């Protein structure tokens, strides 16, 4: 068992970290305030190949593995969590299901576009009445000649307002429950598709979190992803995979919070001493670091499992997400404590880390949901 990164992985880590420090961190506060989608960041990331890491080389991607993606996402998120989310959703929630479940013609059509980041990807599963229970979805798809006609709406869709390619889930037969759900590749220009309101969320504010509206939306039948009725399986597998990314994102935010705390605690003096000399502060830093390391290793473990071709990794992915989001909530809360009154203002980044981490805890299943996924695996 090797707990160190190999030279390639280290190179990725260094390269992305440098990029994040120089390009992403300086912009992070501004985009949080303006809620503007960070196209400038995305373009630069695309030039570095970071928007297409897991897309196979034959389609213009980096042909890299999930461990490398996790490393990159952690470093990106450390600089700017909103950017980290965008990168993760584009690759793991949109490109990945096409890679895994798409036919040759779908892959040839969409993956190069996504690799070049000519279009951003998004994942349309959640609905107003189907959040934690996606099988209860009400968006329908009806085959009519050469098209599926989609009707319904999706909510809380990351990248929703800026994406050009969407993986959308709709039920082709409600009576079959989750077995009636199908997946489709929808382009934003398809007739009947529109983007609804932009959500005003606590954190991750520059991720264009929007509603999607389908009003007799015409989707060519060749855009059915996988088979009719396979949609739910596709959704679950994709979500399991993307939990690796969310774990990496949460680890990135945690790391940012820890480093900010270490730095500030050396500078800030009280009662004549830098606060890092006080045991209470030392205890916090130690606990942050330990939780982060634990979470990071869980992320790496499930990334490696995926890369080795292990088919079932729901439990490990949920554990990684759970551990990482708990770690990040601890780190960001304590980071504000380290900064004291200053931590409560927008003069310092810790309050943004705090808001971003909380969103991370809830995205793609709250801690409570992760526990149920883990338990199901243990009891199966």
């Amino acid at each position: 068992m090797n707990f160190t990164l190999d030279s390639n992985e280290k190179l990725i880590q260094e390269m992305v970290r440098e990029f994040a420090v120089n390009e992403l961190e300086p912009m992070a506060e501004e985009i949080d305030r303006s809620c503007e989608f960070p196209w400038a960041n995305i373009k630069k990331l695309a030039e570095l190949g970071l928007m297409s890491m897991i897309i196979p080389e034959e389609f213009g991607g980096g042909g890299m593995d999930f461990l490398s993606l996790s490393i990159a996402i952690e470093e990106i998120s450390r600089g700017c969590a909103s950017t980290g989310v965008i990168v993760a959703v584009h690759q793991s929630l949109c490109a990945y299901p096409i890679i895994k479940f798409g036919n040759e013609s779908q892959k040839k059509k969409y993956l190069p576009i996504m690799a070049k980041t000519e279009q951003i990807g998004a994942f349309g599963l959640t609905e107003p009445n189907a959040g934690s229970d996606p099988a209860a979805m009400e968006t329908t798809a009806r085959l009519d000649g050469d098209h599926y006609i989609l009707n319904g709406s999706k909510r809380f869709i990351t990248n929703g307002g800026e994406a050009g390619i969407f993986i959308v889930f709709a039920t082709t037969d409600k009576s079959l429950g989750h077995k009636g759900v199908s997946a489709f590749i929808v382009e934003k220009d398809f007739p009947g598709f529109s983007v609804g309101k932009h959500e005003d969320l606590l954190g991750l504010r520059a991720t264009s979190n929007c509603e999607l509206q389908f009003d007799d939306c015409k989707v060519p039948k060749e855009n059915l992803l996988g088979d009719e009725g396979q949609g739910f399986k596709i959704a679950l597998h994709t979500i399991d995979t993307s939990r690796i990314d969310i774990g990496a994102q949460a680890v990135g935010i945690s790391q940012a919070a820890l480093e900010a705390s270490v730095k500030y605690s050396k500078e800030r003096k009280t009662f004549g001493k830098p606060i890092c000399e006080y045991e209470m502060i030392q205890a916090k830093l130690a606990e942050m670091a330990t939780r982060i390391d634990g979470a990071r290793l869980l992320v790496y473990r499930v990334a490696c499992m995926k890369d080795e071709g292990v088919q079932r990794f729901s439990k490990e992915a949920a554990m990684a997400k759970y551990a990482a989001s708990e770690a990040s909530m601890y780190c960001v809360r304590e980071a504000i404590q380290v900064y004291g009154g200053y931590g409560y203002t927008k003069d310092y980044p810790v309050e943004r880390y705090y808001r971003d981490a909380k969103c991370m805890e809830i995205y793609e299943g709250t801690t409570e949901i992760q526990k149920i996924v883990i338990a199901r695996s243990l009891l199966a």
Partner: protein
Amino acid sequence: MQEGRIISAMSDNEHERFREEVREFVIEHVVPKAADLETNEEFPWDIIREMGKKRWLGIPVSQEYGGAGLDNFSYIIAVEEFSRVSGSMGITLAAQTSLVIWPLYSHGDEIQKQKYIPSLANGEHMGCFGLTENNAGSDAGGTETMVALEDGYYVINGSKRFITNGTYADTIILTASHDRSMGTHGISAFVIEKGTAGFTAVGKEDKLGLRASDTAELLFEDCKIPRENLIGEEKKGFRVFMDTLDGGRISIGALALGEAQGALDAAIQYAQDHELKKSQMVQNEIADMIIEVSAARHMIYHAARLKDQKLRVTLEGAMAKCFASEAAMRVSSKAMNLMGMEGLTKRFPVEQIFRDAKLNEIGEGTSEIQRIVIARQVLGR
């Protein structure tokens, strides 16, 4: 049990009647405005005016000085009920009563009490407590704001930071040092009026939460105040502010308690509206939240009751604030998880409460300082 509130044996009919009165007022005057005040970052003048008619900015102060003539426990109940709906209202009230009126009431002379307290109690004037500085937060005794006696006047030079109500305060309590080498034994407390030459309030902090509460910087440049503006004795100011903080802690604890109750109210409502009550996961979360709120309530009420008995509340106040502030964080965090993505939006009050409640772990003594205070009370210095 109504609305998820646990009644406490520490309360009684009289105090519960007062709570009802406050709750009705809050529902009428605060609920319709709270969200907009936050979004627009507006100071709640209209609400202050209405509160002032009932002398509710000075609930524990005797009517002789223009207060409502009730006790500390009633005041704490009021902070709780206001905070249940608006953390900004809670902190505005708490700063006015605990940090401005109270030091004048307990350490001021008769002239100062008659001069300043009535108009603070009826909301005609706002007040603020200038203790914290850029380089003196937890170490408030390390104040760098200096005072010198010149030609029969005190002349103040320095600045204060993170001062609640600072921009609008007509009456300012502040601490300054005569001689830094004397440490905490060189500090005096003063009262200053807005408009005094050499005093300005600047800047509005851009905060994570409590955005309808004003937080400002105070600047003193050769600010001359008359000798009668000294509160208590010269160089005995440290005691004034430590006593003030002892009581202030309970009010911040009540602020946290109210916010936690507000989050619990929202969570219960959500669980009922979405028919979640049979989910064991939900039952688990709600039960923990109720336990936390109940425990916080008992600690706060206990400290408030002790204060009304004129007992020293250093230990109990610190414990109550420490526990309640951390409980409010756990409760608001859980409430958000219960609501999933919707909890992150402004459709529900919980993301607001989550942001507001974080301050309770920091203001008027961080939880770390509270722990040191608590330990010292028991182990000795």
